[in-house]
């Protein structure tokens, strides 16, 4: 039943299982822990940022397949991007979820979340790691400004 409109495409399961970026960073410059209050899912995201760009990333994700797959995509792709780049990708992801919009050119894997469009209750699961990433980057930026 892994037809095109199934939520649980093999890609999602493979990304979730691969858990790219799973772990901890020794030298994180920013960190964020976010909860999904509906299910208690949690993402802990750590980043190292230099000159505004992510140089290393690690996360510990307790969640459903969608949440884990999204975190894994981040683990694979986030290095090299600055906050604006990540915001743009998160925005593209939201438009995939809300309007079935086109896939972000740089992160083609996100197309696997297309079928989630029909399930608004799951959007939070997909977006949680991105929110955590942006929060971690903001924390890093804040420390940088203050330091």
């Amino acid at each position, binding site marked *: 039943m892994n037809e095109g409109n199934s939520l649980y495409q093999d890609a999602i399961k493979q990304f979730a299982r691969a858990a790219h970026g799973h772990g901890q960073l020794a030298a994180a410059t920013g960190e964020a822990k976010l*909860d999904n*209050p*509906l299910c*208690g899912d949690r993402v802990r995201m750590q980043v190292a940022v230099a000159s505004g760009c992510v140089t290393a990333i690690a996360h510990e994700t307790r969640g459903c397949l969608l949440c884990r797959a999204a975190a894994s995509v981040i683990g694979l792709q986030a290095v090299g991007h600055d906050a604006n780049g990540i915001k743009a990708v998160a925005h593209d992801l939201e438009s995939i979820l809300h309007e079935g919009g086109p896939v972000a050119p740089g992160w083609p894997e996100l197309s696997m979340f297309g079928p989630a469009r029909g*399930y*608004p*209750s*799951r959007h939070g699961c997909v977006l949680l790691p991105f929110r955590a990433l942006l929060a971690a980057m903001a924390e890093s930026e804040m420390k940088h400004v203050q330091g």
Partner: protein
Amino acid sequence: MNSKAAPLRDEFPLLAAAPELRYLDSAATAQIHRSALDAVVRHETTRRANVLRGTYRLAEAADIAYAQARQTAARFLNAGSTDEIIFTSGATASLNLVAHAFGNTLKAGDRVLISLAEHHSNFVPWQMLRERTGIELNFIPVTSGGELDLVALPRLIDARTRLVAVTQCSNVTGAWTDVAAIVAAAREVGARVLLDGAQGVQHGPQDVQALGVDFYAFSGHKCFGPGGVGVLWGRGELLAKLPPFLTGGGMIASVTPQATTWALPPQRFEAGTPPIAQAVGLAAALDWMMTLDWQQIHARESRLCELLIEGLQRIPTLRLLGPAPSAARAPIVSFEISGLHPHDICQVLDAHQLALRGGHHCAQPLLAALGVEACTRASIALYNDESDVLALLDGLTFALKELR
């Protein structure tokens, strides 16, 4: 002149089924519009599930319907954001929410300013707050016409005043409050403004941003929607800082025996299973209201109101309460007839198919200020027409004979 025809009457199932009924008690409860009732039934028979937690399609559909209801309420009020709409069980619950969530942030010596024209639901919660926290409660007096006497405002408001909580429109006299003057005075001293919109919403969509207030409360049953549901709108940056009032499922971020953390607004203020089908029904009523030509409706309502006042003025021993006919007033007209008790008047009118309410209308401080114990009230809504007003005037002539 088309003030005779009330084409909208047919759209209200109860009125359509009782053509002889002359319903003049919409200030207490407006009749439900068929779109609202249909929406409730459709929701309960096709989308009923608990919201905010389910991942199956039925629950998704309930979630979407509930979220859309919130969007509709935001549009009806021209709220800055959907997250500023809190669904409650009614205006009274909305007002109590502010009196606790915002009120409990006040300290002894802080001042809250209300008026003597308030409905008990925007009066007693502040007395209770006074008891709980030692705030000082001040009262804007009313003129002999029952309007807020804003001449007194400057000496009643100062830097200690943290909130001004007033009605948008009196449920007894129909007097509209000069909200702009209140807001200006409040802004000058840094006070917040809560507007009790219970009587306002029946007369058209609102613009909370243009009103310039900080909180706005209303009930579904007074604007052609179902009972058991209401709305509190609050400015986003204010809501973000407030603690919750009612607590329980749906409004938390996490719970442990040691401590609990709160969800963001509006969820923070919606503890437990909300009135889902009722919110959906209310949204249908608001959607319908937003399709109407309110200028035309106001013109009709004003004509009917003037016709009624003219007729009443011809009845000897009848005293009209409320502002001058020319003043800014909603089509609510209260009066007393010397020697006749409102309950007796309403009872006789009822025999003539006229539904009016007599009593203190949950506004005892206002009635005391006007020097009456109880009064009879006719409230006109968009489904009333000239024949209703004429029947009322006839009915009163009859009551005068019958009761004396």
